């Protein structure tokens, strides 16, 4: 059960960098109230971040990933349960991998 000083330093560097980003975006907004265009952008930001997050891996994964993604969204719309929707998506990709 060791804790080496160089490892601790690297962990602290990562932790500080991550906290600066977690708090910094809001701190900047609080300090400089941006104009209407930036406000409107922030209004659209949440959905766009997540679309941009999933689009590359889904397209990279090809048809099985796109199908499994559609199953996930369909299950979420029908069942309104995160757990079931995620399980349905993983199950669909697994089934497609076994069938291939």
């Amino acid at each position, binding site marked *: 059960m060791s804790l080496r000083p160089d490892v601790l*330093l690297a962990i602290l560097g990562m932790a*500080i960098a*991550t906290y600066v980003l977690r708090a910094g975006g809001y701190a900047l907004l*609080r300090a400089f109230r941006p104009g209407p265009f930036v406000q409107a952008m922030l209004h659209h930001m949440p959905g766009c*971040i997540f679309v941009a997050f999933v689009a590359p891996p889904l397209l990279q994964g090809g048809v099985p990933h796109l199908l499994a993604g559609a199953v996930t969204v369909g299950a979420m719309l029908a069942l309104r349960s995160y757990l079931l929707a995620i399980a349905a998506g993983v199950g669909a990709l697994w089934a497609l991998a076994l069938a291939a």
Partner: protein
Amino acid sequence: MKPGPVVFTRVGALRGARLAVGLLPAMVPFALVVGVVADSKGLSFLETVLMSALVFAGTSQIVALELWREPAPVLGATLAALVINLRLAPMGAALSPWLDRLRGVRLWGTLATLVDNTFAVCIADQRQGGRDAALLLGMGLTMWAGWTTMTGVGHAAAGLIRLPPGHPVFFAGIATILALMVPIWRGRGDAVPWLVAGIAAALAHFAGLGPPWPVLAGALCGAAAGAWRDGRR
């Protein structure tokens, strides 16, 4: 959106904890892998758990661990965290309707627990008129406890776990985000910004840019397209 005072209650925190418990199972495979990789790079159990507890951002942890060596790459790991976690900055800003009403440790402490999942649920709640900002903290602390524990389990069980890269269970990460996007969708007005975001992210990705550039390019282009369209109405 109906106006009302933003509150910060124990009830909200507990509701957040319950919501987070439903999302924990999908996090398990990724957390186990981070623990296994930490072990393979020579980190001790204590160092692994400490990294998860203090950094609490899985993608940046796995990227930093991939470039780990002896002695620990202090600058490289810090830069990896800075670049990969850039996407967290606009999340805090987008939550301002709640955060503006908080101060001191409630504000800056709650922000320390911000992650993708808790952000998505809280934005959806906020848009449906939710006014209890403690939801973010309750969710965040629960996800944090689960993440720290499961990476520790992954480290302890490193010899037993065999999950090849590309195994279908890793789709749980993407499936989580997709499920979280369903309540964030506000209707047809979101179609243009979301489409632009997806196209910009895909272009950046297939042009060979690594993380975080596809996410940032997509988020900025999509949000700018939405803001520009709103301004013309």
